[in-house]
C-alpha cells in the first residue's frame, strides 16, 4: 500500500469518526430537546426505569456486597500490621464512595443494561419497527430513545448509591462480624472521616457523569447500527468497549479535578 493511500485511509477514518460524533450529538439534541406530544410519556419512562434500573438491581447488589467484603478483608490484612484495623470502615467507605461505587456500577451497568439497550434498539431498526413508527408519524427519538436515555440517567446514580450502601454493609459483615473489629470504631471512624460534599457528593457527580456517557453510547450505538445481525453484534460489542473506556478515562479526569 502506498503512503498516499495510507494517508487517505487515515483521513477517511478521521472523517468517519467526526461524522459519527456529529450524528451522536444531533441525536442527543433531538431526543432530549422538545417535549414529546404523547400523553403516556411517563408510563414509557416507568417501563424503562423498570427494565433498565430495577432489573439491574440483582447484579449491583451482589457485586456491591462482594466488593465491600473483599475491600474489608484486604484492608484489614494490611491495617492490622500497623495496629490500626479500626480504620477499616473509613477505608471501605472512602474507596467505595469516591471510586469503586460509581466506576464499578457504570461498568456493570454498561454490560447489563447498556448492551441490552443497544441490542433492543438495533433489532427494532433491523426489523423496520423504527421505520414503521416514523411512517405512523411518531418520532422514534421521542418515543423509543428519550425514555431510555432518561431511564439510564436516573437509574444509574441510584444504583451507584445502592452499590455503596451494600458495599459498606458487606465490609462491616467481614470486618466486624467475622474479623472482630469493634463495631463502634468501624462506624465512628467512617462517620468522622467521610465528608458529605467532598466524598459523597463528588462520588455522585461521577455517577451522574458516567450514567450520561454510558446511556448515550448504548442508545446511540443501537440507533446508528447497521441493520443486520453482524451490525447489531458489532454495535453491542462497541457499546461495552466504548462505554468501559469512556468511564475509566472520565474517572481519571474527574478524580484529578475533584480530589
Amino acid at each position, binding site marked *: 500500500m502506498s503512503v498516499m493511500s495510507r494517508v487517505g485511509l487515515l483521513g477517511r477514518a478521521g472523517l468517519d469518526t467526526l461524522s459519527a460524533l456529529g450524528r451522536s450529538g444531533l441525536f442527543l439534541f*433531538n431526543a432530549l430537546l422538545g417535549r414529546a406530544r*404523547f400523553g403516556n410519556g411517563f408510563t414509557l419512562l416507568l417501563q424503562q426505569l423498570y427494565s433498565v434500573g430495577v432489573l439491574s438491581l440483582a447484579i449491583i447488589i451482589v457485586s456491591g456486597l462482594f466488593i465491600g467484603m473483599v475491600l474489608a478483608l484486604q484492608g484489614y490484612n494490611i491495617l492490622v500490621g500497623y495496629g490500626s484495623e479500626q480504620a477499616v470502615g473509613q477505608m471501605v467507605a472512602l474507596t467505595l464512595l469516591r471510586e469503586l461505587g460509581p466506576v464499578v456500577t457504570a461498568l456493570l451497568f454498561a454490560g447489563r443494561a447498556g448492551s441490552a439497550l443497544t441490542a433492543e434498539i438495533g433489532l427494532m431498526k433491523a426489523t423496520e*419497527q423504527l421505520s414503521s413508527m416514523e*411512517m405512523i*408519524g*411518531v418520532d422514534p427519538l421521542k*418515543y423509543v430513545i428519550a425514555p431510555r436515555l432518561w431511564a439510564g440517567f436516573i437509574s444509574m446514580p441510584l444504583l451507584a448509591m445502592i452499590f455503596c450502601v451494600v458495599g459498606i454493609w458487606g465490609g462491616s459483615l467481614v470486618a466486624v462480624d467475622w474479623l472482630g473489629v469493634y463495631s463502634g470504631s468501624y462506624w465512628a471512624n467512617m462517620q468522622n472521616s467521610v465528608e458529605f460534599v467532598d466524598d459523597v457528593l463528588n462520588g455522585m457527580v461521577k455517577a451522574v457523569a458516567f450514567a450520561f456517557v454510558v446511556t448515550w453510547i448504548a442508545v446511540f450505538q443501537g440507533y446508528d447500527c447497521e441493520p443486520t445481525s453482524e451490525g447489531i453484534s458489532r454495535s453491542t460489542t462497541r457499546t461495552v468497549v466504548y462505554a468501559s473506556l469512556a468511564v475509566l478515562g472520565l474517572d481519571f479526569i474527574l478524580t484529578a479535578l475533584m480530589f
Partner: protein
Amino acid sequence: MTDSSDYIVDLQQITFRRGSRLIFDGVDIRIPRGKVTGIMGPSGCGKTTLLRLIGAQLRPDRGAIWVNGQNIPELGREQLFAARQHMGMLFQSGALFTDLNVFENVAFPLRVHTELPEDMIRDLVLLKLQAVGLRGARELMPDELSGGMKRRVALARAIALDPELMMYDEPFVGQDPISMGVLVRLIRLLNDALGLTSIVVSHDLAETASIADYLYVVGDGQVLGQGTPDELMNSDNPRIRQFMQGEPDGPVPFHFQAPEYLSDLLQQEHKR
C-alpha cells in the same frame, strides 16, 4: 407545483444516489388521486427507495417531492411527522411492534395521535381488524402469526388513522396463493371503499396489473414506460416488453457485467 386536486404525489426531476451508485436520474412520476398506481421494475431498481423518498425516510440529492401541496424534502422535523399522519405504509416485513399484541399494534396510532376514549378505540380497532379478516386474532402476539397474517395486521395498523395515501412495499412477496389473493382483493377494496390513493411497488406482474389503474415501469434510474396495464402489455419498447412478458434475456441481460467468458476461463490456466 401541479394542481393538487388531480395528483396527490408529484415527483419532479428526482435524482438520488446511494454511495457512488445512481439510483434515480431525473425521474418524474405523478400519482393520480383516488387510483391504484403500480410501480414496477426489476429487483434492485429502486422501487422501495421511491417509497422511502415519498415518506421522507430518505432525501433526494435533487428534485422536488410534492405530496398534497407540500414539498416533502423541505419540511422541518415537526411538519414532517405531521405530514406522515396522512400517509400509511405497508412494509415488506410487516414491521409489527413485537412487544404489543395484534389489538395494541392496531391501536398504537390511535393512542398516540388521538385522545379518543377507550371504548371508541376498541370499536375502531375491531373495525379495521374486521376489514382485514383478523378480528378473531386480536389477542395474538406477532410471533404467533403467519407471514400473510402479519402483513394484514400491519395493513390494519396502516389504515388506522384513515390515511389519504397508502404505500405498499412489495405486498405480494413470499405469500401463498390464498393470502396473495386476499391481499390483492384487500388493496383494491380498501382503495375504493375508503377513498384512498394507493401506490403498489412490486415486481409481481400479474397481481399488480390486475389491480392497478396506472403503471410505471422503472429501471436504470429512469422511467422506462407508463400507461394503463393494457397499454404497457402492448408496448413496442423492447425493454418494457421483456419485463411484461418475463423474458429471461433481452435488453436487460441475463448475465451480470463480466469479462469475456473464454478469456475469463483461460486466465486461471495462465496463472498456473
